[in-house]
C-alpha cells in the first residue's frame, strides 16, 4: 500500500497522486508571481489546480497584496529639493553641440579618414612603381 503520512493513496500511471499534485503545486506556485504581477496566463489545468489548492490560493493572495502595494506606490510623488532647478541650471555646459554641428563633425571625420586612406594607397602605388 502507498502511504504518505499514514494515509492510503491512489496510484496513477505508477506515481502516487499526491506526488504528482505536489509537483504541479511547486510548478504553479513558482509562476504565480508572474501571473498576478505581470499578467501571464496559467493553463486550464493549472488554473483548476489553483482552484483546489489552498497553498496556491494563499500564494495568489500574497502577490495580490503586493500588487495593491505597488498600486499605492505608483501614485506617490516625492517633492524635489527646492534648489534642484537652480542646481541644474548652474551645472549646465553652456556650449551644447547642436545636432547639425555633430553631423558636420562626423562628416568631416569620415571625409578625412577617406582622404588619408587614399593618400596612403597612392603613396604605396608610387613606391611600388618606382621599385
Amino acid at each position, binding site marked *: 500500500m502507498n502511504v504518505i503520512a499514514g494515509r492510503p493513496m491512489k496510484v496513477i500511471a505508477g506515481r502516487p497522486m499526491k506526488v504528482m499534485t505536489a509537483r504541479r503545486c511547486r510548478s504553479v506556485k513558482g509562476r504565480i508571481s508572474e501571473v498576478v504581477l*505581470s499578467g501571464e496566463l496559467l493553463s486550464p489545468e493549472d488554473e483548476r489546480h489553483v482552484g483546489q489548492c489552498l497553498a496556491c490560493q494563499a500564494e495568489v493572495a500574497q502577490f495580490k497584496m503586493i500588487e495593491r*502595494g505597488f498600486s499605492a506606490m505608483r501614485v506617490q510623488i516625492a517633492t524635489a529639493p527646492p534648489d*534642484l532647478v537652480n542646481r541644474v541650471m548652474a551645472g549646465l555646459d553652456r556650449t551644447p553641440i547642436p545636432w547639425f554641428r555633430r553631423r558636420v563633425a562626423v562628416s568631416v571625420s569620415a571625409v578625412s579618414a577617406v582622404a588619408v586612406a587614399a593618400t596612403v594607397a597612392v603613396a604605396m602605388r608610387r613606391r611600388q612603381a618606382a621599385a
Partner: protein
Amino acid sequence: MQHAAVKSGDEEHLITRAQAGDEDAFQELVRRHQHGVFTLAMRLVNDREMAADVAQDAFIRAWRGLPTFRGDAAFKTWIHRITVNAAWTLKKRLGRHTATSLDDAPPIADVSLSGDLERAGENLELRERLRGALNQLTRPQRTVVVLKDIYGWSHGEIAEALGITVTAAKVRLHRAHHRLRDHLEDER
C-alpha cells in the same frame, strides 16, 4: 483631453526651443519634470541627497543629449531612461553604498488620498510595509522591481537600460518578487 493635447504641444515647443539652446525653455522642462525625476531617483538610490545628485546629473545629461533627442519616445520616458543610467553610474561609482533605509525618505504626497479614508489608511500601511521589503532587496533587484512594477517598463526596456539580457531581467524580477513575498511574510 484637449488640455492634454495642448500641454503636449506646448512641451514639444519647449523641447524644440531647448534643442536650439534656449535655456529658459530647458529650465521650464526641468521645472515640470523635477518631481517625477526625483521620485524615480529616490526609488532607485534610496537616499534623498544622492537622489538629488542623480536628478541633477540626469538633467545635465539631458541638456547635452537634447540635440540627439528625436521625439520617438515622450520626453518623460526619455528623461526617465537617463535617470536610470545616472543612478546606475552614481551607484557604481560609490560602490555598494546602499544608503540606510527609506526611513529618510522624501516627504511623500499621496495624490490618491480621496474620500475612502479607511481604504487609504490600509493602502498607506501596505505601502510602508512594501517599501520596507523593497529596501531589503539588492540594488539590481530593487531596480528591476521599481522599473517594472511601479513604472510599467517592459522586460525589453529594462534589459536595454541596464545592459542585461531580457532573460536576465526576467529572472532577476522573479527572484525579487519572491524575496519581497518572503520579507513580507517574515514580518507577520
